[in-house]
């Protein structure tokens, strides 16, 4: 009921806003994906074949007759486990002083790399899911920050532009945490959750971040860099802790009329010396207007600072090659299919999650480090 009311309010907003001197834009996107793997659970797939991943998001943008613009987005998702989630992706106010200086405040999409601001928009990327090595539950980047920011564009030379973002506040980072698992153990079959130490949610406070991107190099090439730095407060055995952590990364993207080539490399580190790196390259080629072939290679590694029992080192690694074929009805509706070859268990795990700590070594030796996955489905936006 709560979900229904939330969506109803959003959908009715454009009607309610009529004749108020404001311009209201309602946009949205959604997907349905089928996934089947040869064993482990990964992305939308499991061994039995999963039909349950669907989601819908609605984005509202209200332009007032002043330099103020208000943006908000809510989502409803049905997960692989056939559970419903509803939430607020972002809500923020933007005040435009000029093209070179815009001020933002609220829960704002995090400007980091290529995809953070369009995290779940399927029609804005060649594959169903973003590369997990950078955008998965690895704690490298997140969807939104809460706080204040500045943003702008400056022309550079005849045909290039520099876009920049500077922001500060708080970030919520979420990471699958094999280290936590090894230290504290977990309950059998309890899956990835904060309670059992397998999923770590961090509040990164007093955070500052920024992104610089030079657009239009040789007409179609964008190059950029992003970074953030903040503090995570914790309570370890009754002792208050305050540790810094940071991420930085580099991006490159060529967006031609028929081909796309992009890649990113990101590193996240904390005061304890743990480092996670992730990178990917993806290529898409369109032919006969509607058809597209896509390929991606990605790699992620978590530096091992602990003595890892034999067989468990795969929990720290993710390597994936994916091939796909898409049919675009237009830019707003696409049918996608893809095959993924995965090595490592950082994101691809057996159904049911982690076993008890005492069973870890046995479990590790039985762990299938290779996963094959097939996905088929549709993504759309309006």
């Amino acid at each position, binding site marked *: 009921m709560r979900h229904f009311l939330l969506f109803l309010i959003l959908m009715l907003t454009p009607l309610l806003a009529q004749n108020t001197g404001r311009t209201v834009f309602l946009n949205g996107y959604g997907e349905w994906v089928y996934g089947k793997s040869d064993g482990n659970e990964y992305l939308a797939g499991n061994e039995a074949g999963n039909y349950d991943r669907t989601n819908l998001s609605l984005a509202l*943008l209200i332009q007032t007759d002043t330099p103020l613009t208000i943006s908000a*987005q809510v989502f409803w998702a049905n997960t692989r486990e056939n559970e419903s989630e509803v939430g607020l992706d972002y809500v*923020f106010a*933007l005040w435009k002083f000029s093209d070179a200086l815009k001020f933002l405040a609220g829960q*704002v*999409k995090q400007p980091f790399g290529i995809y953070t*601001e*369009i995290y779940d928009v399927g029609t804005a990327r060649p594959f169903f899911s973003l590369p997990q090595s950078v955008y998965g539950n690895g704690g490298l980047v997140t969807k939104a920050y809460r706080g204040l920011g500045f943003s702008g564009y400056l022309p550079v030379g005849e045909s290039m532009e520099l876009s920049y973002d500077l922001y500060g506040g708080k970030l919520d980072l979420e990471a699958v945490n094999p280290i936590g698992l090894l230290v504290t153990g977990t309950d059998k079959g309890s899956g990835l959750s904060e309670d059992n130490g397998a999923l770590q949610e961090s509040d990164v406070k007093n955070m500052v971040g920024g992104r610089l991107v030079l657009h239009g190099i040789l007409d179609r090439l964008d190059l950029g860099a992003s970074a953030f730095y903040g503090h995570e407060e914790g309570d370890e055995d009754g002792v208050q802790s305050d540790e810094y952590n940071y991420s930085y990364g580099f991006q490159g993207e060529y967006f031609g*009329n028929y081909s796309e080539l992009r890649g990113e490399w990101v590193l996240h580190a904390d005061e304890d010396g743990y480092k996670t790196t992730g990178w990917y390259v993806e290529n898409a080629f369109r032919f006969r207007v509607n058809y597209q072939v896509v390929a991606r290679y990605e790699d992620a590694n978590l530096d091992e600072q602990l003595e890892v029992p034999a067989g468990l080192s795969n929990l720290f690694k993710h390597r994936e090659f994916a091939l796909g074929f898409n049919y675009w009805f237009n*830019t707003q509706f696409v049918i996608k299919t893809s095959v993924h070859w995965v090595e490592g268990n950082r994101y691809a795990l057996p159904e049911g999650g982690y076993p008890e700590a005492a069973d870890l070594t046995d479990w590790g030796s039985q762990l299938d480090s290779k996963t094959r996955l097939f996905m088929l489905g549709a993504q759309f936006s309006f």
Partner: protein
Amino acid sequence: MKPIAKTLWLLLFCLLLPSHGGWAGEKPAFVVIVHRDNPLEKISADQLSRIFLKKMTQWDDGREISPFDLSPSAEVRNKFSQDILRKTVSVVRAYWQRQVFAGRAVPPPEISEQAEVVSQVSGDPGAIAYVAGDFPLSNQPVKILTVSQD
């Protein structure tokens, strides 16, 4: 050939060089129009590109720029997109998806009728649009801008 005759031939050749895809004397594929009170006479292709991608949203006098697009299926839109934005309409629409869902900007309104575009521009001092080169504009309160490639 005498130097003067050479010069005349060269001059004639230059006059026949294509302008916006057409030969001299032919109508260009599109013309860029603004409100007649807009002081601008000339605009560069790069400025136009920035305006239609909303990277430049204010005229020199601080007034808000209101660009208007034709519908994606219009041949003139396709030509404008290729020549000025140097992108297919599909790539431009993909660009707008990113802007919209990042909550940063919305695309220019898309209008299917060129007469409606002219009507919008004639009623809005900050407006800018393009119509087919052979679209009748006489007696309309709009001004045609010269587009330079530099």
